[in-house]
């Protein structure tokens, strides 16, 4: 019969065994400057007393939104893994690829010199920007929404160049899918300027130069019948965290399969002189089987924000449609004449 003491030590040792992986996962997070500063930092105040988020910030990072297969089951990279990942991603981004033939070559028209995607993983060394669900992936679409999206795709086949309205919002200089909200890193222009005034926070997005003006006075959202490209944002402070709730989205943006019923909650917490911790939670029960949350650091960067002025130089829209018309004409000329 085992003594009481050995039973206790066995329990302790089992607890250690069970908890070891948890500590292994948590240690990089707990030791990261990102987390330590979050515990201790008190941000300065604006003249009207808001925690100060003002400045020009970038959310460029090479950490992907969803966890890559190579890190399956692993929430954090080790430092060595992060260094190797950075080397690999940068080498891949810089590669002068000539494979895939002319079609691929046309699409691959320019290289990393034109991009500004960042060169680092996030400081937490998380393997994905998504922190919930814990697997680092966007939850699956509901069967109904999946069906709807498939129908949308099918209906669009053969119509992509009918007219400018058929082209993407980016090509029409309306909205970039990562400009948000929610704001996600893209391959360039990942810059945001935050300006605070009494009762308001304004976020200027460099990509397609959208400005989001967020009132802080608890006014109600717009009537449900009103839909806006960037939705209707309302903010309030919870301690040092700016919480912004956005509703009244447009069904033309369809963020990751969500629709106009998406409810987005963003949380901005300045955790150091040069870092804002940005978190957002997407909730749209008609689209996703459960809500999901991502965490992205925004780092202070040099300004200014440059104007995007998209329409002025958008020759490409006319070129794409003219190209489609020329192709149709050529195909019609080649087709056998009716009655022959």
């Amino acid at each position, binding site marked *: 019969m085992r003594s009481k003491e050995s039973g206790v030590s066995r329990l302790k040792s089992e607890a250690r065994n069970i908890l070891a992986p948890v500590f292994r996962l948590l240690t990089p997070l707990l030791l990261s400057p990102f987390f330590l500063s979050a515990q201790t930092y008190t941000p300065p105040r604006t003249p009207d007393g808001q925690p100060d988020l003002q400045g020009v910030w970038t959310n460029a990072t090479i950490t992907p939104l969803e966890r890559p297969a190579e890190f399956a089951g692993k929430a954090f990279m080790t430092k060595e893994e992060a260094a190797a990942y950075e080397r690999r991603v940068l080498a891949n981004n*810089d590669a002068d690829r000539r494979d895939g033939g002319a079609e691929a070559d*046309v699409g691959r028209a320019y290289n990393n010199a034109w991009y500004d995607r960042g060169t680092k993983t996030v400081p937490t060394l998380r393997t994905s920007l998504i922190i919930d669900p814990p697997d680092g992936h966007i939850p699956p679409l509901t069967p109904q929404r999946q069906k709807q999206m498939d129908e949308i795709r099918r209906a669009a086949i053969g119509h992509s160049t009918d007219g400018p309205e058929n082209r993407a919002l980016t090509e029409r200089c309306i909205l970039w899918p990562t400009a948000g909200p929610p704001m996600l890193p893209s391959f360039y222009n990942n810059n945001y300027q935050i300006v605070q005034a009494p009762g308001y926070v304004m976020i200027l997005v460099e990509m397609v130069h959208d400005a989001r003006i967020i009132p802080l006075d608890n006014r109600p959202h717009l009537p449900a019948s009103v839909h806006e490209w960037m939705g209707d944002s309302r903010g309030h402070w919870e301690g040092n965290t700016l919480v912004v709730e956005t509703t009244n989205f447009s069904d033309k943006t369809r963020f990751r399969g969500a629709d106009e019923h998406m409810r987005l909650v963003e949380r901005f917490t300045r955790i150091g002189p040069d870092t804002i911790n940005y978190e957002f939670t997407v909730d749209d029960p008609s689209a996703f089987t459960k809500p999901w949350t991502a965490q992205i650091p925004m780092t202070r960067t040099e300004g200014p924000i440059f104007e995007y002025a998209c329409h002025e130089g*958008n020759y490409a829209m006319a070129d794409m449609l003219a190209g489609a018309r020329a192709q149709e004409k050529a195909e019609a000329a080649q087709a056998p004449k009716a009655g022959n």
Partner: protein
Amino acid sequence: MRIPLVTALAAILTAAAAPIWAHHAFAAEFDAKKPVKLTGKVTKVEWINPHAWIHIAVKNADGSDQEWMIEAGTPNTLFRRGFTKDSLAIGTDIVVDGYQAKDGSFRANGRDITLPDGRKLFLGNNNAGEGAPEQK
């Protein structure tokens, strides 16, 4: 409820394709079956979003000039790297390897742009670290 099908699709497709295609799908604009190699002098550079355009004068066989427009990337990134309107001076001889517009107009995307001294200018070659060519 009726969904504006095609518009929604366009947004979805772009989100999915973004890492490869930048602001728009080059494949919709340029013809993979029409590769071009152009030699000409820079006459104008439009540093405008969503894409910069480099204008060059290409000599025809009869000695006359044909203007071509070469599509490049977003200027904001280049500004941030210190690349200014003086970085690619008017009158510079460049060689462009690219693909002509599908509608047959004198526009192309620049797969490679090569300077007189053989340096490749920011397209299609691994020279991201080199920065802008020196000002003259």
